[in-house]
C-alpha cells in the first residue's frame, strides 16, 4: 500500500537521476540512492526512473522486485534482521527467529502494528564465527541469546 508520492520525493528522484544516467549499469546504484534517501522505492517513482534511465517500466519493476534488498513499501522505524543461515542455525538462530516474531508481533517482511519494527530474515551477515548474529538498523550484534535480544530491542522502544 504505497502512499501517493508527494512532490518532494519525486523531485528527489529527479535530482538523483543525472548522476546515474551516464554511469554504465547505473540502475542499481540509482535504486540504492533512492532507497538510502527515502527508505524504500515508491511504486510511483518507477515511471520517472524508467524514463530517466531509458528503460521500460517493466525492466525497472523487474529489477526492484528481483533483489531482496529493495523494498517497495516504507519500513518501520527500525529494521531488525535476524540471520537464519547455517552457521547461525547451528547456534540457535531458529529459536531467536521465533522469539523475534513473538516479541515484535510480526512475521518475515512485515512491520509491527505500531510501525516501530520491520522484521527481515537475512542469510549471512559474515559474523559466522560469533553466531547467532543479528542487526538492528546499522548496528550488528553477535552471540545472541533470547535475553540479549529482548534487551537490545527494548532499547529501541516498546514492543507489542
Amino acid at each position, binding site marked *: 500500500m504505497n502512499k501517493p508520492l508527494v512532490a518532494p520525493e519525486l523531485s528527489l528522484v529527479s535530482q538523483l537521476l543525472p548522476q546515474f544516467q551516464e554511469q*554504465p549499469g547505473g540502475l542499481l546504484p540509482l535504486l*540504492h540512492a533512492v532507497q538510502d534517501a527515502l527508505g524504500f522505492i515508491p511504486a510511483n517513482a518507477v515511471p520517472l526512473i524508467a524514463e530517466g534511465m531509458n528503460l521500460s517500466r517493466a525492466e525497472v519493476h523487474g529489477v526492484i522486485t528481483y533483489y531482496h*534488498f529493495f523494498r517497495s513499501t516504507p519500513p518501520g522505524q527500525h529494521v531488525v534482521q535476524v540471520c537464519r543461515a*547455517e552457521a547461525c542455525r547451528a547456534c540457535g538462530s531458529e529459536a531467536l527467529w521465533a522469539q523475534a516474531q513473538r516479541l515484535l508481533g510480526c512475521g518475515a517482511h512485515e512491520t509491527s502494528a505500531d510501525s516501530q519494527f520491520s522484521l527481515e530474515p537475512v542469510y549471512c551477515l559474515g559474523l*559466522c564465527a560469533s553466531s547467532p548474529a543479528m542487526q538492528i538498523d546499522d*548496528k550488528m550484534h553477535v552471540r545472541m541469546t533470547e535475553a540479549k535480544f529482548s534487551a537490545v530491542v527494548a532499547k529501541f522502544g516498546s514492543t507489542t
Partner: protein
Amino acid sequence: MITLYVPCDSAALAAGADEVVDALHQHAEKHGVAIDIQRNSSRGLFWLEPLVEVLTPQGRMAYGPVSADDVASLFEAGFLNGGEHTLSLGVTDQIPYLAKQQRLTFARMGITRPLSLDDYAAHGGWAGLKNAVAMAPADVVQQVLDSGLRGRGGAAFPAGIKWRTVLGTTAAQKYVVCNADEGDSGTFSDRMTMEGDPYMLIEGMAIAGLAVGATMGYVYIRSEYPHAIATMNTAIALAESAGFLGSNVLGTGKAFRLEVRKAAGAYVCGEETAMLESIEGKRGIVRAKPPLPALQGLFGQPTVINNVITLASVPIIMAKGAAFYKNFGMGRSTGTLPFQITGNVLQGGLVERAFGLTLRELLFDFGGGSRSGRPIKAVQVGGPLGAYVPESQWDVPLDYEAYAAMGAVVGHGGIVVHDDTANMASLARYAMEFCALESCGKCTPCRIGSTRGMETIDRIGTAANKEQQVHLLRDLCDTMLHGSLCAMGGMTPYPVLSALNHYPADFGLEAKAVSVA
C-alpha cells in the same frame, strides 16, 4: 603515551568494540594516563573479540574478550604495563591459535590499520605491484600460472588460465571484476580482507589490470557488508591520490581505475555471470556459457573475474615469486587457504594454513570442539552448497582433489560445525528451501526442482512409502546436479545427498534403505 589496539572489524564492533574504546578513554582520563588507541584490523580470533592489545617492550600483549565492564579492572591490574588479569592472553603472536598458522595473505591482519597507506607500505605492501610494473604483462600472467593459484571463491579454476585468456584477446575495453558477493554462510574471509586490508585487494586488482590490459575494475560487494563497502570506497580514493590507481599507475603511463558496486541481496549474484548482469544494472539472472566471461564478459567485453581472496593472494605471489607460493600446499592445491571455523565451535575464527591439513585438526586443535560442549555431529564444508562431512571423513586432507573424490568440496574454506542436536533431515530440507528462495529462475531443475525437493523431503518424514520417496529424491538430485545451469541448482544436492547418505536415521530411515544408488 601508551599505544593500544582495538579492532574495527565488523565482528569486533558487533561484540562491542566501540563501547570498549569509549570506556578505555574514560578510565585513562580518570587515571591521568595518556593513551593512543589505534583501530586495527582483526586477528580473526573471534571468540576473543573485542581483543584489546597493549604495546609493551615484550611486544603486543593481548586481553580478551573485553567488555566495557571489564575496563575498570584492567586498569586496576595495570594492563597498560602488561599486568596480569583474568582476560590476559600473553603476547599476541604467541597465542597458539595464531602461532600455528601460516599467514601469507593474512600476514598483516590484526597488525595494521586498514586505511593507513603507511602501515601497508611498512608491512610489505605494494612490493608485488612494483615488481609487476617492471615485467612484461605475459610474464606476470606466467607467474600467476606457475604459482598454481586456483580460484578461492569455490570453483578452484586456475586463475592464470583466465588471465592468459583475457590477455590474448584484443578489445577496446577489458575489465577486472572482483567477486565480493560472499553470501555463503560460514565464510567471512572476503569481508575481513576488505575491512581489514583493503589495499591488498586493490594491489591484486591493479596487478591483474596491468597484466591483462584492463583499465577498469569493479568490486561487487554484498549489501550486507556496509563496513566493507565504506572501507573499500575510502581505500580506493586514497590509493588513487597516492598514485597506485588512476590514469598513471605508479608512473607507468597505464591506467587502472576501480569502482565499488553494491549488490542488493541476491545470493545467486555470487555466480559470476549473474554478477555481471547485476553490475550491468539488470536482474541477476545466470547466463549460459559459452561465451566465457574471459572472452565476452562485462558489457560484452573480455573480463577477468576472480574472488577477493584469489586477487588478494596475487601481491604476495608477485612479491616473493611463484615458487615461494607453490611450496605451500599439496598436489594441485598449492598455497594457503584462509579456513573459516564457524557455527557451533568454541574457538571460531580464521585459520590460514597450507592445503593438506585435516578437518579434525581444524575442529579440535584450533576450534577446541563444539561451543555447546556436546559431540560434533556434522560439519558442512564449503558453504551452503557444500557437503556435510561425517566424522569418518575428518582425517581426509583438505585438498581440492581429495575432497572431490569423496563427493565434497573445499570451496571457499568455510566450515560450519553442528553438534548432535542438529537434525540433518531438517538441514537438508533447508538446503532445498534456500535454493527455492534464491534461484534466479532461469533453469527448470533449480527453479522447480528445489521446491519439489522440499516437498519430497517432507514426505520422507511422513509418508508410508519412504523408500520410494528416497528414490524420487535421488532421481531429482541427479537431475539438478546434471541439468542446472549453474552451481546454485547444480550443487544444492551436495548437502542434501550427504545428509541422506551419512545420517539416514534423521530421515527416519534404516541405513540399508539409503545405500548409495
